[in-house]
């Protein structure tokens, strides 16, 4: 992903890049090698944003403060839009199901599944 594209996709979320988003992005880059090169960085960023969104929301723990929650919402929404524009249907569905399982576990006060393996598995849904 070019620097310009990355900058655009991080608009309003720049502060998160050094707060774990870049690390997550690099990890997910290893899971998108089976996609065409032009969408690989977009899908890795989508996964990183969704992981960050779930983390910011505080799912399964103490509720996030309102402003943090809204940042988390924006991460989830942007990740979702990147998937809608770039991912095969199976991957979009797998990501949504992953967030559904994490949030329903949190609502039921059950231990939530680990986010990263779920999302890595979702990236493989089209294989």
């Amino acid at each position, binding site marked *: 992903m070019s620097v310009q594209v990355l900058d655009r996709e991080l608009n*309003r979320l720049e502060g998160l890049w050094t707060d774990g988003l870049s690390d997550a992005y690099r990890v997910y880059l290893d899971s998108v090698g089976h996609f065409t090169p032009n969408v690989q960085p977009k899908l890795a960023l989508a996964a990183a944003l969704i992981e960050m969104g*779930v983390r910011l*929301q*505080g*799912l399964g*723990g*103490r*509720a*996030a403060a*309102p*402003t943090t*929650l*809204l*940042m988390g*919402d*924006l991460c*989830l*929404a*942007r990740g*979702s*839009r990147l*998937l*809608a*524009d770039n991912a095969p*249907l199976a991957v*979009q*569905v797998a*990501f*949504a*199901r*992953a*967030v*559904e399982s*994490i*949030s*329903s576990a*949190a*609502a*039921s*006060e059950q231990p939530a599944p680990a986010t990263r393996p779920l999302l890595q598995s979702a990236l493989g849904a089209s294989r």
Partner: protein
Amino acid sequence: MIAARVEFATERATEFVDITDRIRDEIRRSGLRDGRVYLQSMHTTLGIAVNENEPLLLRDFQGLLERIAPAGAGYQHDDFTRRTDIQLDEPVNGHAHCRQLLLSAFATLLVADGELLLGRWQSVFAVELDGPRQRRIAIQLDGEFARESRHAPESLVEVELARQLMVDPEAVAAPMRRLVEAGGKRLRPKLVQLTAAIGPRNDPLRAAELAAAVELLHNATLIHDDYVDESPYRRGRPTVAAAEGPERAIAVGDYYFAKATRLIAEIGNPGVTSAVAEALEAVCASQIDDVALRGAYPGDRESYMRVVRGKTASLFAAACASGALLSDAPPEVVGALRRYGDLLGVAFQMADDMVDFSPSSGKPMGLDVRQRVLSLPLIYAAEDRVVGPEVRQLLAGTLGDKEVGRVTDLVTSSEALPRVRKEALELIDAAVHELESVELDGLRPTLIGLARAAVDRSS
């Protein structure tokens, strides 16, 4: 003939409660296509009236009633030394009975093509004359009913919503079900369904699936909004955050955010998926702006328009565009409907802002002021040469009951509300204009009616 009841609680001694939407709901539920609705007050101090819902006019009506039959003016009914069979809690309310005599206890309204036949400025009011009390109005609906009202488009969305909530874990489904069943205008799903009938590929079931998903998405954003705004009530019931705690509210919002996204993706139309995803991103970004602007409350019109375009109008626009895309409508039609939805969404939000200053909306007045929610009437009142300085001074301090009451009085006494109303109506005209140059398969009158109804309301 179908019978129903409208029940509500009043909050003040004299109060004009707009029950138009409640009657429309009963008509929709009954499937009445052409006929009459009979209304009857079940009380001797509750009248029924049809008139314009304009806050200052309602004050005029109240003043008129007070002048003709003032309270405590020596009514014989209030002389308990001369009356027999007095209850322990007998109220001193001769004035209220006399006022009711000036109104009517009955009304007959006409229904044509499933719609309540009212003039543009007409609303139906229950007029409380001796509140606050719990009140009832009896309704009978008579005429020709749709044979299969269960299959009306609105019913398809309700069935789809119920079906989706039925398969979800109870921890998330129960709070969402309470929110969905509490009502809401369902404007976004209506827009999806209407626009999904415009192109050559008209599939009502797929349209209902998309419409229900859009409604779930909208409700998911409301659940998070209510936590952020610390709102105690939504649609007359405790918010999910208030009832279940913030942790559960966040999880429920996230669940339906994800589920709605999945349902839309599974429809299998990439254009639709992208349209809704872009709108959702705009909603979330604008919500951040909205909260940030509260530091400079009440803000200015430019900031207001930027936030409302993202927070409200983007999903209206996406609802219109996605329905049209689903039906394979031509790009120029999709574009026109997207612009129509955008303009309608802004006008809708302006009308919603005005409700906060309406004594008869059925919602507590001044709630937006108390919660420092972005509001165009408040922005205009703060700019007003006469009331502006006091409004700004009050908003800069702590907002208790007294201050909120004073701010709402100042807003209603200024030109702010007529100015916002005029602006909303101009936006509706512009939205209607967008529909003029494209072929809409006979749906133009319905879309125009929906747009006009969206701003002609009080609740």
